[in-house]
């Protein structure tokens, strides 16, 4: 059964929905959270492998030395950076720092660009 059964109008034309910078930060916080959740078992696997003796440690390092894995890693680093920054923005607005619209828009830009900046730094270091 649908959660909401009243007849409110639904407007879901993604090309026409207004997407202010804050809503982009918000939906990306969600998307990056899901990406990170999917990445967790992979990280636990690498931790496990790296502690199974010198051979496993070498294998874990070698796993990272692959272009596809590096691409995934950069994606996860972007996700982590964005998610952390957006989370700190949330925590600050919980204690009423930056919850007014101009400051909130500014911090949303900082989060969105900061995440990309960290990803570029990671790409520079890894590639």
């Amino acid at each position: 059964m649908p959660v909401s059964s009243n007849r409110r109008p639904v407007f879901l034309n993604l090309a026409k929905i207004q997407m202010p910078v804050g809503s982009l930060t918000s939906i990306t916080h969600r998307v990056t959270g899901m990406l990170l959740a999917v990445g967790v078992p992979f990280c636990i696997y690498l931790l496990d492998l790296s502690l199974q003796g010198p051979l496993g440690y070498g294998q874990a390092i070698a796993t990272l030395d692959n272009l596809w894995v590096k691409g995934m890693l950069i994606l996860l680093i972007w996700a982590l950076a964005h998610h952390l920054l957006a989370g700190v923005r949330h925590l600050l607005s919980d204690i009423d720092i930056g919850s007014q619209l101009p400051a909130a828009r500014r911090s949303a830009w900082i989060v969105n660009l900061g995440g990309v900046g960290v990803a570029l730094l990671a790409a520079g270091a890894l590639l």
Partner: protein
Amino acid sequence: MRTTVTGLRAWLVQRVTAVYMLLFILLFLAHAIVDPPHSYPAWRAWLMNSGVSIATGVFFAALLAHAWVGVRDVIIDYVHPVALRVCLLALLGFGLAAMAAWVMRILWMLHG
């Protein structure tokens, strides 16, 4: 005492775990930059340190609790058919519990 994680409690879990993970990640990065473990013995010795082992265990507990609240919220928001929603929530719960057991095993074997 309530045992479900809803409303204010979920809000609080999300924030407490977030702050802990933020501190852990910053300290981990600082250590990795200042004194990176370049070999297996160094890496192992670092994680064997009881403070680091406990902090790592708590980190994964926080991470899995945070993932439970976050992914659960996403499932509840987007998956409306009740049967499918319950299946996905159960799958998520089993998955996270399995990962918790996996991390416990890793830390246990490290000291065993």
